[in-house]
């Protein structure tokens, strides 16, 4: 691409780069450009003033020449009245030369006037452009500042919300943990109440209970032993009773024999 778009882009970029070399802040660059435009406008205005001054000078010259021309005309008239035709001719020929100069100056004056009008118009248009640039520049600067602020606010805000999120998570975790513990405690209570879980709490009290149990258990064992012995003892006599007379008799014989031996009766 080598057309208008490309060339303009290159010109603008070159200018932007030059400007950026000096100031990285686009707001400064814009201000710099605006300053340059003002200087340019000042140059154009100075040009307009120069042209106007030249025009004025021409007008003065023209007036002088017109004055001289009128004077020569009068002199010619007077010379003719005095019968000096030669002098009148001289005056009129000088006047003719002056008229030629006047005509040339008038052409120059017209040209200068045209230039001046064009320059004035150009200055006005440039003024409008510079004004528009100033407005645009302020808008861009404001947008840039706002964008910067927005970025900062955004960063700060996201930072804050992240922190808030962390705090929220911590609270959530604490709440979850509490709820979990409460639920567990509740469940344990229920399980203990239902008897599905042994209560291992309050062991000191249970030591006594265990000792008492042990003691009472021991007593029971003794009692049980005695009961069993008694049973055994009782059992043998009943067995003897069941088994009948031989044994009885044997026993009787023995007992009778023995007691008999020792029977005093």
């Amino acid at each position: 691409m080598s057309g208008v778009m490309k060339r303009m882009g290159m010109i603008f970029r070159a200018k932007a780069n030059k400007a950026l070399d000096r100031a990285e802040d686009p707001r400064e660059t814009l201000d710099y450009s605006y300053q340059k435009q003002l200087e340019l406008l000042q140059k154009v205005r100075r040009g307009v003033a120069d042209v106007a001054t030249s025009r004025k000078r021409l007008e003065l010259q023209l007036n002088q020449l017109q004055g001289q021309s009128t004077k020569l005309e009068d002199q010619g008239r007077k010379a003719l009245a005095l019968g000096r035709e030669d002098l009148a001719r001289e005056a009129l020929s000088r006047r003719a030369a002056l008229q030629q100069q006047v005509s040339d100056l008038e052409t120059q004056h017209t040209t200068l006037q045209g230039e001046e009008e064009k320059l004035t118009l150009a200055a006005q248009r440039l003024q409008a452009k510079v004004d528009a640039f100033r407005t645009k520049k302020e808008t861009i600067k404001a947008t840039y500042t706002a964008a910067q602020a927005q970025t900062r606010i955004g960063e700060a805000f996201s930072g804050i919300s992240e922190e808030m999120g962390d705090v929220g998570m911590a609270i959530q975790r604490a709440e979850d943990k509490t709820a979990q513990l409460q639920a567990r405690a509740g469940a344990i209570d229920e399980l203990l109440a239902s008897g599905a879980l042994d209560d291992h709490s309050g062991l000191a009290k249970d030591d006594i209970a265990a000792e008492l149990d042990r003691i009472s258990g021991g007593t029971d064992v003794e009692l049980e032993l005695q009961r069993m012995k008694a049973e055994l003892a009782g059992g043998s006599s009943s067995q003897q009773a069941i088994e009948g007379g031989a044994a009885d008799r044997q026993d009787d014989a023995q007992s009778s024999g023995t007691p008999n031996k020792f029977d005093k009766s």
Partner: protein
Amino acid sequence: MIVRIMGEGQVKLADSHLAELDKLDDELLAEINADDGDGFRRTFHALLDKVRELGEPVPDDSLEPSGLILPAPGATLEEVRALLSDDGLIPSP
């Protein structure tokens, strides 16, 4: 590619459209060089219309550098020529 129309703002153009615009752009440059005022106006407005038609406007609050720059719609041949001169609208430091 971002294209700026001066005084109007920016539009985003797909690269596939650039060849089409390039033709008009080259025509425009030839007309400026040939001092062809009528041709310049015709081609210039055709180019701007094409850019507006094919492009998608870039939001005003977005700050993106332009790949291509076009003069304002009201620009005359002389003004564009002045813009293309070394000094351009923004004078060199």
